[in-house]
C-alpha cells in the first residue's frame, strides 16, 4: 500500500502518515531523518512513500548526484591500474573507487582480466562509507560466481536519470509511484525484447549500457530508453514508442 505527499527539506512527516499497527521497528529510508523525540523530517525534496507492510518510509526523488551504497550495481570506468587494484570512476569528478584485481570470477594472479584505461566494468559496491573511497567487486561474495558482473565489451553507454535506473531495476509490483509523479513501471525493455535481441546493464549511477550487436540496434534501444526517461512516458506511451522503434528497425 502506498500513499503520496510532496515534501521539501525540513518538512515534518505528518504523524498520521506514519505506519501503525505493526510490531516491526520503523525503518527510515533515504531522504528522511529522525528528529528526537518523535518527529520525522525530510532532508531532500520529493514524494513521501510509505510501505505499511514493512513498516518503512522513504522519499522518492529523481535528481541529484549518485552517492555510493553497499550492494548497488554500478557501471564504472577504469582509470588506471596499480599493482593490486583497478582505480575506477563511478561518477566523474567524484572520489575514485577501487576494484581489487582479484575480485573477478575465478581470478588468480595469472588469470585476472587485463583492463585498459577507459574500459567499462559492471560491478557491485562492496563497501561504501562517507569517509573512505568506495570499493567495488565483480564477484558474489557468497558463491564466488560473477552473476553477470564483469568487464563490458562493445556496446554503448547512455546517460539516464538516477530515478529511471532505480525503476528499471525494480520489479513491476514494487514500483512505488504512478508515472505522472516520475515513478511508474517500465515495460519498454520487455516490449522491445519481444522482437529483437539485445543486452542491457543498468548501473545505479545513472549509466545504461546497451549492446544490440550493431550500431543501429544499439542506438535505437538506447534512444528509446532515454526518451522514456526524459519524457516520463506512461505504460501505453512506452508500448507505442517500442512499436515505433521496432518499425523503424524494420523487424
Amino acid at each position, binding site marked *: 500500500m502506498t500513499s503520496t505527499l510532496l515534501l521539501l527539506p525540513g518538512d515534518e512527516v505528518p504523524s498520521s502518515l506514519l505506519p501503525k499497527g505493526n510490531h516491526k521497528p520503523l525503518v527510515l529510508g533515504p531522504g528522511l531523518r529522525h528528529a528526537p523525540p518523535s518527529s520525522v523530517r525530510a532532508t531532500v525534496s520529493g514524494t513521501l512513500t510509505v510501505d505499511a507492510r514493512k513498516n518503512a518510509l522513504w522519499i522518492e526523488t529523481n535528481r541529484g548526484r549518485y552517492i555510493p551504497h553497499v550492494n548497488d550495481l554500478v557501471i564504472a*570506468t577504469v582509470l588506471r591500474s596499480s599493482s593490486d587494484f583497478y582505480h575506477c570512476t563511478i561518477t*566523474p569528478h567524484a572520489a575514485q573507487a577501487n576494484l581489487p584485481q582479484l575480485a573477478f570470477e575465478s581470478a588468480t594472479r595469472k588469470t585476472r582480466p587485463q583492463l585498459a584505461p577507459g574500459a567499462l566494468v559492471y560491478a557491485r559496491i562492496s563497501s561504501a562509507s562517507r569517509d573512505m573511497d568506495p570499493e567495488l567487486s565483480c564477484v558474489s561474495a557468497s558463491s564466488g560466481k560473477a552473476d553477470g558482473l564483469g568487464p563490458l565489451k562493445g556496446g*554503448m553507454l547512455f546517460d539516464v536519470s538516477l530515478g529511471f535506473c532505480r525503476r528499471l531495476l525494480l520489479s513491476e509490483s514494487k514500483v512505488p509511484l504512478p508515472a505522472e509523479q516520475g515513478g511508474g513501471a517500465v515495460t519498454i525493455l520487455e516490449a522491445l525484447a519481444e522482437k529483437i535481441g539485445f543486452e542491457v546493464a543498468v548501473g545505479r549511477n545513472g549509466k545504461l549500457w546497451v549492446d544490440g550487436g550493431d550500431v543501429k540496434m544499439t542506438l535505437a534501444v538506447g534512444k528509446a530508453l532515454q526518451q522514456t526517461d526524459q519524457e516520463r512516458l506512461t505504460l501505453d506511451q512506452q508500448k507505442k514508442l517500442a512499436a515505433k522503434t521496432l518499425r523503424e528497425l524494420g523487424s
Partner: protein
Amino acid sequence: MPREAELSLNEREFLLQALRENVRLDGRPFDTFRNVELKFGEEYGVADVQLGKTRIVVRVSCDVTAPYPDRKFDGIFNITTEFSPMASPAFEVGRPNESEVILSRILEKAIRRSSALDTESLCIIAGQKCFAVRADIHVLDHDGGLVDAACIALIAALQHFRRPDVTVEGENVTVYSLREREPVPLAMLHHPLCVTFSYFHSGEVVLVDATLAEEQVRESEVIVTMNRHGEICQIAKYGGSPIDAVSLLTCTSSALGKVQALWKYIQEKLDEDAKKRDAGGLMAELSAENAR
C-alpha cells in the same frame, strides 16, 4: 586541476563505428547544426544562445574613457570570456584552461581583428574621449561547439546593443541617458560567424557542429570564420592530424551556406525583437538617425 571527464573506450569505439556507418549519435546528418535558439534580454546588448545543450550568454556594455595614446582616433573594444564552473566541473574560475584560451583567441581574431565593429565610430573627441565597448561572454552549459555558439551570441549581442547618444559642442561632451534620447546602434562593418569542422577517420568523415563527445574523439578541427558575403576572416587549425587542401575548399564552401542561414536566423530574431520594442511605432521618430 580538474579535467573534462574522458569517454570510455566503449563509447569511443561505438562513436567512431557509428560515424563509419554514416550515423551520428543524435541522429543529425553530418553537415547540420543543432537547434539554435537565440533570445534577447530586457536590456540592449544581452543575447542568450542555446546550441543544443550548449548555452552562452553575452552581455555588451559601454562607458566613456580616454582612448589609448597611440590610437587617438579609435574607441576601445574588448572581449572577455568566462567559463562558469556551472557549465562543467572541468572549468575553474580564474584559471583559464586550453579551450577558454582558444575561444578567446579565436573570437579576438574573428571579430576584433577582422574589424567587424568599426572602432573609429566609437571616438568622441580624438585623443580625449571615446567609448569603451566591452563584451562579456559567459558559458553556462557546455556540450561542445563553444566557438560557434559564442560567435553567434557575440554578433547578435553587438548588433542588438545600443550605445548612448552623444553631442559634442567644442570641448563639451554631453552623453544622453537612455531616457533622454534614443540610443544609437553600433556601426558594424560586417558580421563574421564561425563554423567548426571536425575530422574523423583520417579526414574521411567531416562533421559540422560536433557535440562534446564528438569533440573528445575527433582527430582535428578546422574553424572557418566567414561573413555572409563569403569573405573568409580566418581559418584556424590548432594541431591535430593533417588535412587535405581540397577538403579545406569544401569546408569553406559549405561554411558559406551555414553562415548565411545563421545570419538570416539572427536577423529574423533581431527584427522580431525590434518590433516588440517598437510599441506604438514611434521608434523611427525617436531615433537619432531621424533628421529632426
